[in-house]
């Protein structure tokens, strides 16, 4: 059920909030053995919340809330009071934050029901969800394959129709890439559009909370609820939040779509290329003008990203020291030994690798050569986008160079895993919004996603373009593992 279906059935009296919550909870519980999407399912809390909503709704249809009774799954690095926030890490195993993230407060105020916390790569570091300290997540389209990462649990939960909407976080593509690999919509907004208060920090100049949904309209509605200035996050901008849903007009006249041809070269899977090329032709048929654009520094984006993201992560993760909360290694004789053993036993291999790399690039004598250099190339990349957006309203690329890969396929080669993010990291580096929309299935029946990128604050345009495509080329296929019959 998407949001519109829930709303219609509630209004028609076919369902109440409790029935909607019960359905999502049952699906989450039944499919978790197969998919591993959830780290915690909050049956009691969700049903209590549904009961409140049902009691409040009686006889007063005028107070219908925008997300009334909509079940939502939340990545385990976003704080929900009363639930765990392990971030997929042993070092935060059993940690229960004493407050709600601002995005969670806003979802709840809009009537949403939080059903549980979803699995992810440890501290959102990964592209396959295999870095979770607990268990991997499996792709509902083929359980031998990864769902993508790092927000793999949220993506799998929405793709398998357990919930219509889920929150994730996107530091280098961690919402858009799993959305693509799971055949759903994934949105990463402009830097400063959504408050990060209550999102556990990874790369602070890159992180944004993002949205998963089965269609553009649900994503647009959810963003209308969670976007906006928050005094508790100094990086949120004082920019008005438009009604994103009203932008879904289907109108592509006078639209200009930019195609960066250099990104359609080596390393791109043939099926992915064909699907994205077909999407470009769909836009042309809808009346859009297709123009070539150049992003000459995009090929350096992975190098820039893995300097900046790891540098910021090494600093942000310094707070996990075993003193105030979370895991502490036993039987240390000195404070320093306690720090080191706690971090050694508490962090997994990928997190240690990134802390090490980040510490190296920030260490004395290397700061200018790596971190400062990367921040300068980041400026060049921002300038590439600014020039490209003089010629077009949005840029189209694949979201990921391949469809979902097999579990274990890339775990031995960290650099190969990093290169998987080639199409997505640019948006985080430039602070621009990006959105992934399903655009077909490969010959192996795996979903393919295309990415739309726009200038800062262009979410309305991206939603309009994505919605127009969705209307022209509906993606109706459902994964074999799904809570609902097609």
């Amino acid at each position, binding site marked *: 059920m998407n949001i519109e279906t829930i709303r219609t059935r509630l209004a028609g009296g076919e369902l109440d909030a409790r029935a909607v919550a019960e359905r999502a909870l049952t699906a989450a519980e039944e499919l978790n053995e197969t998919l591993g999407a959830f780290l915690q399912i909050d049956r009691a809390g969700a049903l209590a919340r549904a009961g409140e909503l049902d009691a409040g709704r009686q006889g007063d249809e005028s107070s219908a809330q925008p997300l009334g009774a909509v079940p939502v799954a939340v990545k385990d690095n976003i704080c929900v009071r009363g639930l765990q926030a392990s971030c997929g890490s042993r070092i935060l195993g059993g*940690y229960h934050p004493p407050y709600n993230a601002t995005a969670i407060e806003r979802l709840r105020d809009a009537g949403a029901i939080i059903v549980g916390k979803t699995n992810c790569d440890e501290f959102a570091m990964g592209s396959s969800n295999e870095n979770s300290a607990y268990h991997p997540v499996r792709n509902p389209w083929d359980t031998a394959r990864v769902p993508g990462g790092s927000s793999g649990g949220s993506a799998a939960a929405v793709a398998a129709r357990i919930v219509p909407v889920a929150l994730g976080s996107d530091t280098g593509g961690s919402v858009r890439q799993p959305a693509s690999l799971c055949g759903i919509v994934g949105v990463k907004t402009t*830097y400063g559009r959504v408050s990060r208060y209550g999102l556990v920090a990874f790369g602070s100049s890159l992180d944004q909370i993002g949205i998963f949904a089965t269609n553009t309209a649900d994503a647009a509605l959810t963003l209308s609820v969670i976007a906006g200035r928050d005094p508790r996050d*100094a990086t949120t901008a004082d920019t008005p939040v438009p009604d994103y849903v009203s932008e879904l007009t289907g109108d592509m006249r006078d639209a200009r779509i930019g195609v960066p041809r250099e990104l359609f070269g080596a390393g791109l899977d043939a099926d992915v290329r064909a699907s994205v090329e077909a999407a470009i032709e769909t836009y042309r048929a809808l009346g859009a003008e297709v123009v070539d654009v150049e992003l000459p520094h995009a090929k350096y984006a992975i190098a820039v990203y893995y300097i900046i993201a790891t540098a910021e992560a090494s600093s942000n993760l310094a707070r996990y020291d075993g*003193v105030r*909360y979370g895991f502490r290694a036993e039987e240390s004789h*000195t404070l320093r030994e306690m720090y080191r053993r706690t971090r050694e036993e508490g962090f997994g291999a990928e997190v240690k690798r990134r802390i*090490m790399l980040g510490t190296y*690039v920030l260490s004395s004598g290397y700061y200018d050569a790596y971190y400062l250099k*990367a921040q300068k190339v980041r400026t060049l990349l921002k300038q590439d986008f600014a020039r490209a957006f003089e010629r077009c309203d949005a840029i189209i690329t694949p979201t990921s160079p391949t469809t979902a890969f097999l579990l274990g396929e890339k775990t031995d080669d960290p650099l190969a895993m990093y290169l998987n993010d080639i199409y997505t990291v640019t948006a985080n580096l430039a602070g621009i919004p990006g959105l992934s929309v399903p655009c077909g299935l490969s010959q192996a029946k795996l979903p393919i996603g295309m990415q739309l990128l726009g200038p800062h604050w262009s979410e309305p345009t991206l939603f309009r373009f994505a919605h127009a495509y969705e209307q022209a080329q509906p993606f109706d296929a459902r994964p074999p593992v799904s809570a609902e019959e097609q």
Partner: protein
Amino acid sequence: MPITESDIEKIAALAQLELTDDERRALTPQIASIVAYVEQLNELDTSAAEPALGGLTDEGARTDAAREDAPLPSLGQTLALDQAPDPAAGHFRVPKVL
């Protein structure tokens, strides 16, 4: 510049990580190959580019991020200590410093 196991040991100390021998041996070539990869940035002349530090958007940079200077409730001692691995007498207890 090649990265050696002793470099890895120094970085681990800075990062407050106590690596096992196996980890140190595995990380050395991995960090070296990633560093070699990111060094492709040296191809680029960045002498005219300002580093992208600070706000990423003009609107974000213009936003007055300071809130009103008014006291707000804090977490409080009970809640702050609630999840401490070793709370004692209203404090976070840790092993001896030296």
